């Protein structure tokens, strides 16, 4: 019996969201996720392409067609198992992957209508599993080999999970008091609830991984010292060093790096101040400088903390913004204004050392630069001044430098990133690296991809070494 070919549904099933007016006043998750009916309806839209271009777009090659087939059959348990073969943090990826440039970018359905909402499908099955309790996969027999992992961000967590599954003992050393990296200290609660990051980290512990928090490598132990206790080391220390513009007035009170602002609000829970002890100050007129995810997250946090006016000031135009499309849409819905082709030139303080205004200059776009985006050029004489009482600098982050400074024999680029070969191997035998520390700031899933690749290489290194 041949099934009649279903009619193509061009529009994606809409995911319910918290009302924009209401959510500006709370830190609850904005996107609410599909229901069972909705997830199946969205999966039904898939064209079952033979070559499945969606899979190529995913840095860890999740078997998307199989996932979709299992969702259609409502076999959610099997669906999540399928995803987890490739991706140990699906609840996170489903929420924060820039799907429109990855799995959904090349989706065939996207050529005629909305691409299949792969991220939302993945999110659904991950949430389904979390609500029912994690299934811990069978472990390989212990190999007796020990691997130290530096940093509990997506790169480190993934590498550790994969190594544990292969029977190696993996110990993560994390400097902060909680695992998750940017997922826990940077990305806000309303976009990625902390309990999800905590649950995924717990799952990784269930695989047999030890996570040692409050352990800063380079200070407590050097990489060279770790090599005395472990058979291999993986460095996933991320790009957390905030960049500033080096313009006058940047150290005035009321000027934060996005990292400081987000660490206070997310990791330290300043939104719950004074019950949580760490304060944060947000004035009435907030300017966020930058155009990426960090800028968007900072702006939306400032709004939720009571700012009257929040403006994102970006030196290029909308097309060049390196941010998840969905989040710009959410931010604008919430009332955040975007000001393009504008760059601050100095911050002006009052007599108590607080910022009270900023001077900006208008920009125009010239030829594309090394990043392929058109270079912004200042327009002479276009300076103007605006009142602000809070400024958040979200113009980028560079690699954390401590490990590079304290490790003998580690080859580093002039940007401070660690040099690795195609398998993630560094210039030191037995030491591997991956994630933002190698690429500079990138994405969660690319960091995970790097963690996976390195885990594979470490496994080969450990099993051949006799």
């Amino acid at each position, binding site marked *: 019996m041949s099934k009649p070919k279903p009619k193509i549904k061009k529009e994606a099933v809409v995911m319910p969201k918290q009302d924009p007016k209401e959510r500006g006043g709370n830190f609850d998750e904005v996107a609410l996720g599909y229901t069972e009916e909705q997830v199946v309806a969205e999966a039904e839209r898939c064209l079952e392409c033979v070559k499945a271009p969606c899979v190529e777009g995913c840095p860890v090659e999740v078997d998307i067609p199989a996932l979709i087939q299992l969702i259609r059959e409502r076999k959610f348990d099997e669906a999540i198992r399928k995803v987890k073969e490739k991706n140990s943090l699906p609840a996170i990826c489903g929420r924060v992957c820039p799907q429109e440039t990855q799995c959904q970018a090349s989706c065939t359905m996207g050529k005629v209508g909305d691409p299949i909402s792969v991220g939302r499908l993945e999110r659904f099955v991950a949430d389904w599993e979390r609500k029912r309790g994690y299934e811990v996969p069978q472990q390989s027999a212990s190999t007796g080999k020990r691997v130290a992992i530096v940093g509990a961000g997506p790169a480190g967590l993934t590498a550790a999970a994969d190594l544990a599954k292969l029977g190696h003992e993996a110990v993560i050393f994390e400097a902060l008091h909680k695992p998750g990296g940017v997922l826990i200290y940077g990305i806000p609660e309303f976009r990625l609830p902390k309990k999800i990051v905590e649950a995924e980290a717990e799952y990784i512990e269930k695989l047999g991984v030890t996570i040692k928090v409050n352990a800063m490598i380079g200070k407590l132990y050097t990489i060279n010292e770790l090599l005395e206790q472990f058979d291999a080391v993986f460095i996933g220390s991320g790009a957390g060093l905030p960049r*500033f513009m080096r313009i006058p007035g940047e150290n005035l009170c009321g000027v*934060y790096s996005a990292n400081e602002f987000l660490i206070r609000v997310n990791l330290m829970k300043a939104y719950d101040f004074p019950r949580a*002890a760490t304060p944060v100050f947000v004035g009435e007129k907030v300017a966020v400088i930058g155009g990426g995810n960090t800028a968007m997250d900072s702006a939306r946090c400032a709004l939720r903390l009571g700012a009257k006016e929040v403006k994102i000031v970006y030196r290029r135009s909308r097309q060049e913004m390196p941010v998840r499309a969905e989040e710009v849409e959410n931010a604008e819905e919430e009332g955040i204004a975007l000001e393009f082709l504008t760059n601050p030139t100095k911050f002006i303080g009052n007599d108590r050392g607080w910022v009270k205004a900023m001077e900006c200059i208008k920009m125009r776009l010239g030829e594309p630069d090394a990043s392929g985006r058109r270079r912004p050029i200042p327009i002479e004489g276009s300076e103007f001044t605006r009142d602000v009482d809070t400024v958040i600098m979200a113009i980028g982050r560079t690699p954390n430098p401590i490990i590079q400074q304290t490790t003998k024999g580690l080859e580093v680029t002039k940007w401070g990133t660690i040099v690795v070969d195609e398998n993630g191997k560094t210039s030191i035998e037995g030491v591997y690296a991956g994630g933002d520390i190698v690429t500079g700031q990138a994405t969660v899933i690319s960091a995970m991809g790097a963690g996976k690749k390195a885990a594979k290489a470490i496994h080969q290194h450990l099993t051949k070494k006799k």
Partner: protein
Amino acid sequence: MYKIVTRRELVPHINLFEFSAKEIAAKTKPGQFVILRIDEDGERIPLTVASVDVGKGTITVVCHEVGKSTKQLGNLKQGDCILDLLGPLGKPAEIGKLGTVLCVGGGVMVAPLHFQVRAFHEAGNKVIGIIGAKSESQLIFEDEMREVCDDLYVATDDGTRGYKGLDFLKELLKERKIDRVVVMGPVVTMKTVSELTRPHGIPTIVNLIPIMVDGMGMCGACRVTVGGKTMFACVDGPDFDGHQVDFEELMARMKMFTPQEKLAFVFQEEGGRRL
């Protein structure tokens, strides 16, 4: 969890805590600090290490109760535990054989200064110590300092003990040949001493304690201007050349959260009810 193996009140509102922290103790050098968190809702509190006992696996800090979090720490007892302890952080103090070293400590920071003084003493320097406090009743670590200083001077803001204020330093700097000055204490003290040593051209190291959050170079809350350049005190310091530091900016930045901190303090005193 990290256990408090000793808690002792030195003077009212200044307490000494010895924590069991074997790995940290083995690595900490004078001038370095730790960051601790009392509980799940706790702030990250930076404190400079005042001594270590590698054999016993402990580190000691001395903390002045100035606000919500330090008061909460002050309320803990021997045998209690704190949730998080991270360290050692910051660069160690530069200790070497320099000749005569003048070490000036103010308030609670006399305790961690003592850790350095001992090291300078053991490195074969002649050490002149100055310890100060608001008032006689607030002076700490006098005996410990006397043990490792060749000469020790005492000063108080109100003159209840020793010299009144730091004016006597002017004479001292004229009379003695000093190769290095180290100052730990309130910002005003560091600023005053740096101004006094500047005309003599004596290298003066100040130990800066701006507001910090992570203490590992990721937030920039601790940024200070030194010689016109922005530095992160937690990773580039905490020791800097006192003649190059922009103290005005530092003082303004250290008051950044004062209104919020007062609110937190009241909240705590009210028993943690929602305001």
